[in-house]
């Protein structure tokens, strides 16, 4: 209700005494040397309290989350690397004065040759984006499994295609924002919408050259994140200004800035060569990926790794050879976005599977069922699939969509043609490889004398309802009403260390920690109650806020009473439960071979899209979607379906509508008017089916859901278009122009 009534305060809504407003001066050039910066006029403007450039004082090179190539600086010192790169920041008494101050800063640039196409940037002799490095390829990988030559030799059908996916803007309704303030003792507090306060604290302390314990991050409610609100420079720049000005500073991106200088999805060019045996078994797969990092690596190395190997665990395939290159270009730095490399590679993989199915004369659903991973599988990458509902997802989405009749319907030759397509995917529930020295989650729960519980956990709510889920889990174990459970926002001063919410980890890892903490708290309550009631601890149970003896139910006290007694005996300390969850049997990947079981539970999904293609205009209309998701166990159906619906909407945008339009390094579509995200009339009817495969590791069997939910959408649509009109669009977004061009080309053959 706080949200609908407008009472919930987001970061941009915060007001503090003496608060200043900050703005960023950004580079207008894609690649240029900085010859000089003159801030004298800006500093003299009435109302300006601080002006900082990279030339004022040495700023260390840093990276996010321990990525080994330190290619970032808070403000440009020698060069700017993309249009939007941060050059200077100002803080002033109001936003207008800050904007005026930006106009008064004179920067002298010497433009340098720039690279925009990763294939060009890879060539020897290409302009170096970061001259301290040998090339524009900060990360590369290669691995082999099985015997690829043998696999191709055994193949009856070999298909090879190259696919391309573009930048995708997160489109959270709340633009990036930050409020920073320092105390008299040199400790920083940041009020930020931040998916990982813990990671932020580490990275920002390093970027500022101070100790981690000097940084306090208070997580603010988020107006959407989807991966785009992890580490972000604006947070630290705000801190720099607050320190220089000696007053709190607020900074909020304009929407245009957010388009130019956010961290959009990593574009990829993916070539796949796939061999399939006569009996339909996948025999061999050769893959080459070129991933566009933009001006800085950020998390793109992890995204490239994810795109390189995760999909290999979706179907049973033994013979694999993969190479991937992460390449710098003078464009907006790319980063995490829901799916983390999976939407990109699954677009390619699921498209090429349909091509193979067509050549073999096999139904695409049949081909997938023949090869599906199964529960108990131990894959060539070392993944242990304790639960796997993939086959159920395929069958149920196929049944729920009228697949059989629609696949065998005679093709239409008229203006409108209908088609139906399927795609599958998998994901992780938490990813061990994110941070070498830490994984897992912890939680503590305090119960007050009124029997109300407060949960502290390190996994953040991005708006998706993690706090509701955690409250449900805690309430379930404590035997109280979820309404009596509050889940605290993350504050690094108070909350237990937790990685935060990304990698689809919140329910599985955070949820398990909350579950354990609640069980611990319950035990402590039982200990107190046992003494009071003169009963045996093992005999007690709790329900609806009442602890009772199972042998003699008349012996009972309320949770509140027990908690109050406990409080009295603990000299004011509240009854507190602790829970720590480390996912069992997970490991980092081997740095060379990329082999390793990186997660304790893997969710699976299958989606079927039905489309109608207008041969006259090339427009594709989605008539129906069926999405079947194996999430292990449904803890909250309303929230779960909400994730599927929201994700499918993003998938539809990715597939058909969203194009940032970069030309010569400039983002052309910098507003919602030209960057088309799905609106209310763009949504088709959507049937979500939640498949429960009961994972042994997840809390009550639950696995992740929210990230994979968008991955199958684009390939399902592409496959449906192929079924409808026989054209294969290999580049997203699938615009009417591309469809028309492909139809014309097909007609000419």
């Amino acid at each position, binding site marked *: *209700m706080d949200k609908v009534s*407008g009472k919930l305060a987001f970061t941009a809504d915060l007001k503090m005494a003496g608060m200043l407003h900050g703005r960023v001066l950004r580079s207008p050039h894609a690649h240029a040397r900085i010859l000089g910066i003159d801030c004298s006029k800006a500093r003299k403007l009435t109302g300006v309290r601080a002006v900082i450039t990279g030339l004022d004082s040495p700023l260390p090179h840093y990276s996010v989350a321990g990525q080994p190539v330190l290619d970032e600086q808070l403000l440009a010192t020698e060069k700017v690397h993309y249009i939007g790169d941060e050059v200077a920041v100002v803080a002033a008494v109001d936003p207008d004065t800050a904007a005026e101050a930006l106009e008064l800063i004179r920067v002298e640039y010497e433009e340098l040759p720039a690279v925009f196409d990763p294939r060009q940037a890879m060539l020897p002799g290409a302009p170096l984006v970061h001259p301290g490095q040998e090339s524009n390829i900060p990360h590369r990988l290669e691995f082999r499994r099985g015997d690829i030559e043998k696999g191709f030799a055994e193949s009856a059908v070999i298909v090879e295609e190259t696919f391309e996916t573009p930048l995708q803007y997160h*489109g959270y309704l709340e633009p990036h924002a930050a409020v920073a303030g320092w105390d008299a003792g040199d400790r920083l507090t940041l009020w930020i919408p931040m998916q990982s306060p813990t990671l932020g604290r580490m990275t920002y302390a390093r970027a500022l050259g101070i100790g981690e314990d000097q940084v306090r991050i208070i997580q603010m409610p988020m107006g959407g994140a989807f991966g785009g609100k992890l580490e972000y420079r604006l947070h630290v720049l705000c801190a720099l200004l607050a320190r220089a000005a000696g007053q709190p500073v607020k900074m909020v991106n304009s*929407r245009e800035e957010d388009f130019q200088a956010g961290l959009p999805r990593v574009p990829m060019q993916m070539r796949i060569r796939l061999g399939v045996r006569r009996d339909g078994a996948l025999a061999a797969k050769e893959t080459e990926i070129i991933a566009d990092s933009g001006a800085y690596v950020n998390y793109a190395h992890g995204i490239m790794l994810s795109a390189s190997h995760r999909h290999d665990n979706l179907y049973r395939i033994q013979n694999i050879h993969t190479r991937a290159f992460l390449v710098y270009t003078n464009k907006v730095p790319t980063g995490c976005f829901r799916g983390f490399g999976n939407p990109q590679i699954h677009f390619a993989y699921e498209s090429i599977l349909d091509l193979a199915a067509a050549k073999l004369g096999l139904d695409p659903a049949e081909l997938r069922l023949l090869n599906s991973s199964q529960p108990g599988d131990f894959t060539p990458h070392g993944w242990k699939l304790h639960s796997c509902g993939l086959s159920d997802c395929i069958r149920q989405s196929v049944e729920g969509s009228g697949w059989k009749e629609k696949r065998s319907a005679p093709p239409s030759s008229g203006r409108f043609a209908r088609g139906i397509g399927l795609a599958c995917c998998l994901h992780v529930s938490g990813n061990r490889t994110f941070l070498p020295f830490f994984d897992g989650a912890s939680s503590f729960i305090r119960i007050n004398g009124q029997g109300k519980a407060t949960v502290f956990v390190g996994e953040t709510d991005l708006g998706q309802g993690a706090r509701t889920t955690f409250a449900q889990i805690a309430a379930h174990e404590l035997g109280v009403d979820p309404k009596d459970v509050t889940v605290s926002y993350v504050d690094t001063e108070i909350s237990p260390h937790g990685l935060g919410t990304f990698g689809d980890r919140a329910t599985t890892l955070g949820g398990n920690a909350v579950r354990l903490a609640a069980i611990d708290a319950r035990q402590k309550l039982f200990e107190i109650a046992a003494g009071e009631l003169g009963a045996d601890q093992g005999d007690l149970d709790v329900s609806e806020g009442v602890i009772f003896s199972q042998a003699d139910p008349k012996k009972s006290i309320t949770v509140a009473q027990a908690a109050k007694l406990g409080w009295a005996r603990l000299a004011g300390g509240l009854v507190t439960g602790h829970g720590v969850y480390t996912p069992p049997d997970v490991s980092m990947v081997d740095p060379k071979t990329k082999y390793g079981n990186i997660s304790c539970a893997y969710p699976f999904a299958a989606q079927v899209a039905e489309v109608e293609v207008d041969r006259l205009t090339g427009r594709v209309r989605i008539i129906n979607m069926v999405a079947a998701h194996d999430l292990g166990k449904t803890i909250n159906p309303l929230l779960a379906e*909400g994730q599927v619906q*929201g994700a499918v909407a993003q998938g539809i945008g990715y597939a058909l509508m969203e194009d940032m339009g970069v030309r010569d390094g400039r983002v052309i579509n910098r507003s919602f008017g030209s960057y088309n995200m799905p609106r*209310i009339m763009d949504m088709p009817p959507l049937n979500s089916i939640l498949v429960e495969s009961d994972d042994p590791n997840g809390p009550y069997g639950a696995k992740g859901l929210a990230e994979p939910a968008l991955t199958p959408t684009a390939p399902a649509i592409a496959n449906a278009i192929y079924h409808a009109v026989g054209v294969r669009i290999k580049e997203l977004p699938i615009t009417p122009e591309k469809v028309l061009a492909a139809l014309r080309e097909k007609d000419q053959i």
Partner: protein
Amino acid sequence: MVSPGQTLLELLRDELGLTGAKKGCDGGECGACVVLINGQPVNSCLVLACDLDGDAVVTIEGLAGEDSRVIMESFVEAGAVQCGFCSPGMVLAAKALLDEKPDPTPEDVAGALVGHLCRCTGYLRTVEAVRLAARSLAGRRGRGVAAKRGCADCREI
């Protein structure tokens, strides 16, 4: 108090402390800043504060009556609220729609909300929420419970 270039959105947020209206794009494309001006939903980022003279402006903070509460609860119950950033604007637009069309079709709802972007929910539940609100409000009116339409349901500052 009002400066010439100040938008209604800025006036509300910066001067009057009414932060329920959000600055999502400052260009009239996302609907997060919608308020009701004389009963009609308007993007407040596109209105100059000094252009208003004698007009009735209702923000989300002004929706305090029972009907409004029903609408808000319908959004929550239907699962149409995730991050909540777009919600105040949507609720105001829904109020304006229901004041004019107490029994809207899904097409009516889509038409009323096409100017509102939501990145979290995928909109399907939003349509359900408005229709649920319509049914609940009709139920209240049917039971003869005082039903105020339009600005009479709003609290004045």
